[in-house]
Structure formats: C-alpha cells, structure tokens
C-alpha cells in the first residue's frame, strides 16, 4: 500500500488530472463496426482449416448417480469424430473457480437437470447436436432438493453461513415503539446475453493451445484450460476481443465451454468450436440467485428505524461458484442507503439441485438492497407517512448515523443533495397529489409512484482481485496500441481506455487502438466485473502512459535543457516553455535516441480491507449513488401494468463519457426492471427449467421502455482518487429499478387506502399483481 502511494506521488507531475471535454464525446470504439456488421464475435472468426464442431449431452435428472453411459449410437451417428466423458479428461475434472464442485463433465454424480455429461465432436454443428441426443444414460435418481425451504430443512449449504452485526439488536427490538416483520421471495434472472456461450480452441505446436472465447475472465479460462489439459499456464493463450453481452454470465461460466473445446481439440489435434444453442445455454448456465429473505424491524412512531434483523437466503444451486461473495454482497447492501442503529444481518448459502447460480450485474447487491426498500415501505404504511419522507429521514447522515452494519463510515454520501434535486426535477410532490386524486376517481386503474435511492459499494470484496495490468506501445508513426486486463462486453470499457490514453498523451482517440484482451499481453488479470473495469484498468493504463511520458519528457527536456516535470502533452504536442515538438517528431526522435516506447502499467486499489471473521472493515473504495422516481399504472382486473414515467439522477463522479454512462444507466435500469417484472424463471417439479427459451422467458422489449424516461448525471468529482475522479457505473443503475417494484406496491396499496404494504414477490408478473389485488381486497373487507 505504502509503495503504491509513493509511486503515485512520483507520477503526479506528469499525470493528467482531468479529462478534456472534447474527448468525453467519443462514440463507442466499435460503433461503426457494430452497425455495419463487421464487428467480429467468436462465431464470426473465419474457420481454421479442419474446424470441427462440438455439442454437449446433458442430464435428464436433477439428482442421482450415473450408472452407465452407452455412447454406441452417438459414435455411430453421422459425421461424429469423437466423444468424451469425464474420465477422458487428462488433467483436473473440477473447474470450480474458487471452491471445488463444478466438474467440466459430470463425474458419477448428477447435480442438476441439464448437467453436461459428455461432449461430441462432429464435422458440422448439426451433426454434433443430433449425435448429442442419442446417448443412453442410465441414472439412478435420488430425491432432489429444489427450493430454499427444502434446502433449509435438509441443512444443505454450499458454504458456511455468515453474520455481521452492530449494536444490540435484541435489546433494540425489545425496546422498540413499534415492530414489524416481513418476508420476500425474490426471483432469479437469466442473463440473456444476445451472443450465447461460445468458444473456439485452436491447437498450436506441441501442447500449446489458442483459445478464442466470449468471457469476462480470460485469465481464469487460461488457468482452467491448462488444468483440464494438464499443462502449465504458459502453454495456453486466451484471446477475447468482445462479447455480445456478459452481465456476469460469462464471469466464471464461460470457462466450461473453452475447456470442453480444448479437450476435444487436444485429443484430435484440430480446431474445435463449441457454441451452445440458446435453449441449452439457458439450461446449463447459472442465473442471478433467487433469494428468500426476512426482516424483523423496530421503529419509532415518527418512522425512524431503530433496529433491523435481516435474514438472507440465496439459492446457490449445486455448487459454490461465486455464491460466497454474492451472498456477502447481498448482506453488505441490505442497509442500502439507510442508517440502521442496531442491526444483525445473517446470510445463508443454500445448496439445491439447480444449475449453479452465478454472477449477474449487481452480484447479490440487488437482492439485499430490495430488503431495505421493503422495510421503508413497511414503516411508511405503518406510520401513515409518504414512503419518500420515511426514506429521507432514515438516510445516512450526521443526524442519524454514518456507520454501516460492517463498520465502514459513509463519508461520501451525496444522496441528500441528489434526492432533493430529483424530487424537484421530477415534480414528485405535485405528482403525488395528482395520483392520489386519480386513484380516488378511478375504480379499475390505479397509479403508483416511488422514489428509491441506491448506494452501491465499489470494489471486489475479494481484495486480491482489486489489481490490474496494462501494456502500452507507442509506434514510430505516433500511433498507439493499448492493452489491458479488462474485457469489452458492450459497456464501453475500451472506449474509455482509449480516451484515457489519448488524454494522457494529448493525442486524438483515432491514434489509439485497443486490441483484444490476451493473456499473453497482460497476465494474471481479474475478471471484468464488480463495475471495476474502468477504475482498475484505466488506472493501470494511465500508469503505463505516465512511464512512457516520463521517458519522452526526459528526452525532450535534455534536448532543450529544461525540466522534464514541466513538459506538457497537449494538442498533439509536447510543450516545454517556448519549446514545442509535435507528437510525431517527439516519438521519432525518441526512437532514434533509443528510448523505449513501450511500458507495462499496474494498479491496485488503495485503502480497502475487510475482516470477514469480524464482519468489519472497509470493503469498498467508495460508494456510487443514484435515485429514481418511477410512476406506474396497474389494471386491477388483470394485473397488467405499465411504467408511465421514470426520472433518474445518477452519480458517476466526473463522467469520462456521458453518452456511455447514460447508456449504462438506461440499460441497467431496464434490465433491473425486467428482473423485477416480466422475467419469470420457472422450474417444474422435477427440477427442469421450463422457461428455457425466448418464447417463455420475456426480457423487456422496446415497448417496455417508458415513454418519459429522463436520465441525468449527478456530476460531482469522486472524493477518492479514482481515474479522473470518475465513478464506476456498470452495476449500480440496475438497482434504480427497485423504484418500479415500489411504485407497483404503491399503486396496490391505494386499494387499502395506503394502510397496507402489499406482499409482492418478484418478479411482479401481471399474475402476481392480480394475486396481490385479490389479497388486498380480502384484507380490506375483513377490517
């Protein structure tokens, strides 16, 4: 840590502290290629000679023991070249990313319906897929555990439970003026990246292997491919230019398809491509975790929360995957933006016979944060105040308190100012009055309104992942290639990186090209996840740029007898007092003068620490904030609803690229809205996923975008020394969509004259909304 700070001080002389405004308007680096169809995804790479195609055969039981596998018909099927099962793996079978439990192909035990058991190689995609349906697999089924309740009864956990606490919750609840309890069932979410899982393995000399993949974590793909092949990491190169969407679904769970492709490629010494058909992709890859959460709270007659005991249970599926960290993050966000004077938060990692649930934008944060908002709504109805009033008075503040349940001080809270601004621009109170009137006059259609905040912690909770590397080359014509450990999945990371490089060198972004992410250029990288892509890789790239700038400045200063510290890099020039060099000349002269024009960069996030044993520390470098106001109409005859208007104000620090940041906010919001409304994962009683295609699983379509959708950036520099004082923006906006769920409940609550906070499990499909209408009508009649 000390060293890092020192390094920073040394470099400060040459670092640009701000991003120049004209660079901020850079369009997505691949935009022209996207619209013209020339952006190349893995399936678009011209086929190597002798390319063969793989397909996987999957389990038709959720739980059991493999008795026998008869592959006769598979081998006999037209075009088949090879078939492999777990026993054919020369190296490690288990490809669990952190904890074990994820066999690349099922090894004796069946853990979920749809688990890959074998893989076929054939001359065409169709031949491979047909052959994969022909195995005769004898499985002795056992009773599967399919729900969180069943898992709890069976004490079935993938990892030990974990608690964090502050104050004395027992006393606080016992002495509370009012108490309330509640429970919430929270649905999972299919990633539905438009480009499905895919990988192509190309054997190279001897035991070397080149892997093209659509993965957020090329270094992990490299490691796992090496492990299944029983070779060392330096024999494997992973190349990842872009993904057609990731959202967390390609953080750990893209590796399996690379491993299978590599196994077949190594055995047959030919290039192998494995592309999952959409339905299989949906069956064999993990989702956002479904949760079952409870709360028990105490509060005053004024509506100030005095204590909260929150229990969080994540359905992790059959293996740990990333679930330990995901349930942790749910726990770390159960307070959202509110001070809990006394609290205890317990998190359980339930093991079920489902596919192993995995990272998904927000990484457990949303499933924790929604509890805080459920609590606020509960208090509001009990004390008869508007939910916004309750939210505002419970925010972290000098008056309430600044310490989180994990004992980190909230030092950068901008929510008071941000909410006040949004309240005003969205006309919250005037619309509240109009809605109250509307609901009095309309017996069938009811309107609802809700403003909810977001406070999202930025940093990987696994401390070691908060590091990044970069490699920057300046060529003799002045053009620049930059490479870093982050991956481009549409979020605009490469665009922001190219802006940072251009900004540092004072050149235009056209002079900068970001190449595909490759494990032979920057090694040992972290996944592009936790919204950290720009924070980590941007700083690492900046570090590399500074090193080259120092060399150029030194060389230039020597020539004109100046101080290298005074050299400026602006407008394609190096300027030192009255002396100038064009960028091109400076580079040329430095090359002739034998100055290295290439450098690696490195960054690690300062200040963070967290003791999981005590549940205390500073797990986050900083918080990103935002708030949204959603207005909805519901139809009390059918449960159908419409989001009529959304206003968002979101904190991105100093925006590096306002268009890209707004894109993340809008897209994250709509994705979160889908999670909470129409995206309905369904498994049948045998544990088979039945919402397994796009006809049965409905993500938001274009008509679901609200007619009025105002999105503004709250631009205030990040207090912490992040890259140009910007803030991470990938995940936080997803949770702004909790305002839609709260608005639906607000509309429903009108049926009880706002006396009852209706229990609305998510996703709040029209069917669930109507069920809630039925419940409310019954309850009101009883009273």
């Amino acid at each position, binding site marked *: 840590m000390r060293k890092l700070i020192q390094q920073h001080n040394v470099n400060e002389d040459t670092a640009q502290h701000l991003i120049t405004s004209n660079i901020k308007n850079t369009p*997505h680096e691949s935009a022209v290629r996207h619209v*013209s169809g020339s952006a190349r995804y893995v399936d678009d790479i011209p086929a190597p000679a002798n390319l063969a195609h793989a397909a996987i055969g999957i389990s038709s039981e959720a739980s059991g023991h493999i008795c026998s596998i008869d592959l006769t018909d598979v081998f006999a099927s037209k075009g088949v070249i090879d078939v492999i099962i777990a026993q054919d793996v020369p190296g490690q079978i288990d490809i669990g990313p952190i904890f074990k439990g994820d066999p690349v192909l099922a090894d004796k035990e069946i853990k979920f319906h749809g688990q890959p058991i074998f893989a076929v190689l054939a001359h065409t995609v169709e031949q491979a897929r047909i052959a994969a349906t022909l195995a005769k697999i004898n499985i002795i089924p056992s009773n599967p555990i399919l729900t969180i309740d069943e898992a709890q009864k069976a004490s079935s956990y993938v990892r030990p439970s974990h608690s964090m606490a502050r104050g004395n919750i027992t006393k606080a609840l016992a002495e509370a003026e009012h108490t309330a309890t509640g429970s919430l069932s929270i649905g999972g979410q299919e990633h539905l990246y438009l480009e499905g899982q895919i990988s192509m393995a190309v054997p190279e000399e001897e035991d070397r292997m080149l892997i093209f993949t659509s993965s957020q974590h090329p270094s992990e793909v490299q490691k796992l491919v090496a492990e299944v092949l029983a070779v060392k990491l330096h024999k494997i190169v992973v190349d990842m230019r872009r993904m057609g969407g990731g959202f967390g679904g390609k953080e750990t769970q893209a590796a399996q398809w690379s491993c299978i492709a590599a196994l077949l490629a190594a055995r047959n010494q030919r290039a192998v491509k494995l592309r999952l058909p959409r339905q299989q992709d949906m069956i064999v890859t993990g989702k956002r975790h479904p949760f079952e959460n409870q709360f028990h709270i105490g509060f005053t007659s004024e509506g100030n929360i005095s204590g909260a005991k929150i229990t969080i249970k994540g359905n992790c599926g059959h293996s740990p995957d990333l679930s330990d960290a995901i349930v942790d993050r749910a726990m770390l966000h159960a307070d959202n933006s509110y001070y809990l004077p006394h609290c205890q938060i317990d998190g359980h990692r339930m093991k079920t016979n489902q596919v192993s649930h995995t990272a998904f934008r927000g990484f457990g944060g949303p499933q924790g944060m929604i509890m805080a908002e459920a609590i606020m709504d509960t208090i509001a109805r009990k004390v008869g105040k508007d939910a916004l009033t309750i939210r505002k008075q419970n925010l972290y503040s000098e008056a309430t308190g600044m310490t989180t349940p994990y004992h980190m001080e909230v030092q950068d809270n901008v929510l008071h100012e941000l909410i006040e601004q949004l309240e005003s621009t969205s006309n919250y109170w005037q619309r509240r009055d109009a809605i109250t009137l509307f609901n009095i006059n309309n017996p069938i259609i009811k309107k609802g309104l809700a403003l909810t905040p977001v406070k999202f912690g930025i940093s990987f909770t696994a401390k070691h992942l908060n590091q990044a590397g970069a490699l920057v080359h300046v060529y003799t014509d002045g053009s620049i290639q930059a490479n870093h450990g982050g991956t481009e999945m549409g979020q605009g990371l490469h665009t922001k990186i190219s802006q940072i490089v251009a900004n540092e060198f004072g050149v235009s972004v056209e002079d900068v090209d970001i190449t595909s992410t490759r494990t032979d250029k920057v090694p040992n990288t972290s996944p592009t996840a936790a919204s950290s892509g720009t924070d980590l890789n941007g700083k690492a790239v900046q570090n590399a740029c500074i090193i080259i700038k120092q060399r150029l400045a030194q060389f230039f200063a020597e020539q004109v007898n100046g101080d290298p510290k005074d050299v400026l890099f602006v407008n394609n020039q190096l300027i030192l007092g009255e002396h100038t060099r064009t960028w091109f000349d400076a580079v040329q002269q430095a090359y002739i003068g034998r100055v290295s024009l290439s450098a690696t960069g490195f960054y690690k996030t300062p200040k963070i620490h967290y003791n999981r044993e005590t549940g205390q520390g500073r797990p986050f470098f900083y918080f990103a904030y935002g708030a949204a106001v959603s207005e909805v109409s519901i139809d009390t005859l059918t449960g159908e609803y419409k989001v009529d208007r959304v206003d968002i104000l979101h904190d991105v620090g100093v925006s590096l690229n306002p268009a890209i940041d707004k894109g993340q906010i809008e*897209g994250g919001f709509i994705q979160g809205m889908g999670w909470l409304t129409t995206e309905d994962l369904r498994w049948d009683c045998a544990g088979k996923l039945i919402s397994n295609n*796009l006809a049965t699983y409905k993500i938001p379509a274009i008509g679901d975008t609200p007619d009025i959708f105002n*999105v503004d950036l709250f631009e205030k520099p990040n207090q912490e020394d992040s890259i140009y004082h910007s803030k991470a923006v990938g995940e936080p906006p997803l949770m702004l969509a909790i305002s839609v769920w709260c608005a639906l409940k607000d509309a429903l609550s009108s049926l009880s004259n706002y006396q009852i906070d209706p229990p609305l499990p998510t996703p709040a499909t*029209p069917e669930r909304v109507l069920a809630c209408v039925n419940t409310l009508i019954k309850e009101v009649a009883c009273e």
Partner: protein
Amino acid sequence: MIQFLLNNKLVSIENERADTTVLHFLRDKQALTGTKEGCASGDCGACTVVVAEPSSCGDNENQQLDYKAINSCVTFLSALQGKQLITVEHLSNKQSLHPVQQVMVDHNASQCGFCTPGFVMSIFALYKQGDSVNRLSAINALSGNLCRCTGYKPIIEAALDVCNARVADQFSEASTSTIAQLSALTKTNAGTENLILPKSRQALAQAIRKHHDAVLVAGSTDLALVHTQQLQAINKMISVTGVKELKRIEEADNMLTIGAACTLSGLQSILLNHFPALQEVMDRFASVPIRNQATIGGNIANASPIGDMPPILIALNAQVVLDNGMRYRSMPVADFFTGYKETKLKNNEWLDSIKIPLPTANQILRVYKVSKRIEDDISAVCMALNITLNNNNVLDLSAGFGGVAASPKNCLNLSNKLVGMQWSSIESLKQGQQILLNEFNPIDDVRASGAYRKQLLQNLWHRFWLETNNHEHRIETRVSQHA
C-alpha cells in the same frame, strides 16, 4: 432452381437442402457474418434481414419496391424466390455508412453490438417504407428486436430521427434496374427437387399428389422450429406462398374473403379497415418480421391453443374453407379444431381461405390479450367478444377464447343466456361471469396458472361490460397506450 438477388448479385440455388435457413445460407455459405444468430427461433431479431419485392399495386412503369424485415433464422430459401435479399453488409456504400447506420452511431445506440445489425435492418425496412413514423410506429416496427444492453431509448430516438429525414439511397437509385432484374426472375419456373413452388391451385393439388413425402409450408415461422430447435430434417417442402388463389383478398356480399397464404402484415390494413378494434391485438401479434412471413392460414392450421387469430375469427363467426383441388368445403372456425394441435384437415387437403362476415351496425368488437410482456409474447388468455346491441338489448353475442383449453374455443352458453338481456344491467355482468367461471378449466403452465386464467376470463368480461356500456363518467380500463 431458386433465384434471388443477394443485394444486386443474382444467386441461383440448385442443390441445397430444403431446410436450409436463410441465416445458415448467409453465415455459412456466403461468409456474411454480420447477420447474427441469437435464438434461432424468431424471438430475438438478431438475424433480421430485409427482402424487397415489387409492390403488388401500381402499374409496371410506376412500380416500387416493398421492403420487409424478416427473421432469417426461421425462413427457408424458398421464401427468397424472385426477391432481393439485403443484409447489413449491403447498407454501407463504399466508405460511407447508410443513414440508418450513421444515426445509430450518432445516438450511441449500440453497446455490445450483437443485436445491432438486426435493429439496423428493421429500421432500414421502416426507412424504406416511406410512411411517417411516430414513437408508436417505431416501437411497433422494432418489437421483434431484443436488446439487452441499451434499454432501447437511443434506438427509438435513432429510428425517429432517421425515418423523419429520409434521403435517397443506393437502393432507391437502383430500384428501376432491381425491379427489372426481379421481374425477369418471375418468368422462369421456380423450384428445386425438394423445394416445390406451385403457382396455382391446380399445380398445388398436383404437387401434393406427386410428393407424398413433402411438407406443406407457408410462412415457416413455426415449422422452421422443427428444424432449428428439434433438429429434425425437413427433406422436401411444398411452399404455398406462391399460389395465387391463396393470396386473394376479396370483398363481396358482406363477406371478406382472405386467402390462407396472406401474411398477417398483408391482411392487416383491410382487416383493420373493417374491424378497427383489432389494432391492438394485431400490433401485439408476434412481431413485424414474423407477421411479414406468417400467414393467417398457418396460424389456424397450426391449431395451437394459443394462436391469436382463431379466437378473433371465432368471435367474428368466420368460416374456414378447405380445398383439395377438386372440391371446397367450409365450416365455422370453432368446428375446425378437434383437439390439441388437431384439425379436420384431411390428407391432400389444404386451407384455402377464411370468410369473415363484415360488421353490421351496432356490432361491437373487443379483443383482449393478456401476457407477461406487451410486445411479442404469447397470450396467457386471449378473449374476443363480439356483441350486437339494439338500445341496450343484446341482439347477438359471440365469443372466442385462446389459452383456456386444448384448442381455441367458442362459448355458446354466453349467447344462449345473454341474448335478450338488458346489457347495462348488473345481471348481464354477473351472468357472463358465472358462465365463464364454469365453462373452462384452463391448465397451469409456464405462462400462467389455471386459476389466473380463470379469473382473467371473468375480469375481462367485466372489462368488456364496462367498456361497452355508457357510464356517466368514463371509467379507465386500460394501462396500455394501445387502448
């Protein structure tokens, strides 16, 4: 031979599997990988391409090209006969982007970019159609394209911008020669050994007699899934989409006759002309690319319990006309269905047309579709109600239902009980609800529970009663902008 223009290059297909999809052809045979596979089931739009053909109206000299977006993943090569196929690669003109591409860049409307070529092509079709575009029509045109990244806002804005500032492009400049090239193709006898393309009723009858092993195909939007999802080969097909008798639309004797091979897009304007109440359900019927391919006959002959056309046609007292080349026979649409995916269609028989009685005075039609998502979703319940009133007196009532039984259903009990009653009376409301409570026992499935469907039947009846009675104050009954 199947002949079409790939942009401006003539392609002749002689030996190709019948079940080769246009997407497969583009990506694997032509190395045109700009068109993407997202789902291979017509649900995501990443594979959207545009086909152009001379419009059926207008004389030869003033002929124009009609541009339609289709899902290449559920379209077989036979559908390209005599048409121009345009993909995302063909839009850029030398070094410059087409306006619809440029506007997407300008609006930052792509993130991961995988859905982008599909959006570009859907917007391109809208751009070439020439009608003025508002937010609603832009959304309608793009309802079959899913984007998981952007939240759609910049895409809507891009579509609105570019479609309201159209300029001539290379396609309009080449239109005369394109039309000439395409006209030449209609003169040749189209088809291959395994893709048979009859042009008349007699030729169709002959083809069916000759090729017992062939499958009849119309829009292929459902049939293609047999191949792309169930991995079954379809070795031989007879396409009915070129049979001129099956594409007729006629109005005579208060009867609207629609040929079975008319696409849902093709029949939309005349249908809405007579039945404006169908606007919402037609807009929500799958998506534009599907409606551009899918036929009314396919939606009926498919006999799915959740197709949206059958309940409407049942409520409208429509008849289906069946044909075997020698003899026509007809029956009410409700009678056509004999069970789950079963119909009265015999071997060698095909659906010829649908006959819909034109509306009479005092006839009120309402169609309610309830689904999880508004756009491009399958009904949990679809309910069509057609009532004729005379001063509050129920003269006639017919109803069609989807999603509540193994096949599309009518409900004769409704008319038996309700005819003669005072429509505004609370009794009419209660009677109808009571009947619907007992009439169906819908099942639980991935879309909805049986209990929800049952409650919807009663509550949609309530909505119908509210909407068709005159109240002192208009009661809002809909959340959707379509209403």
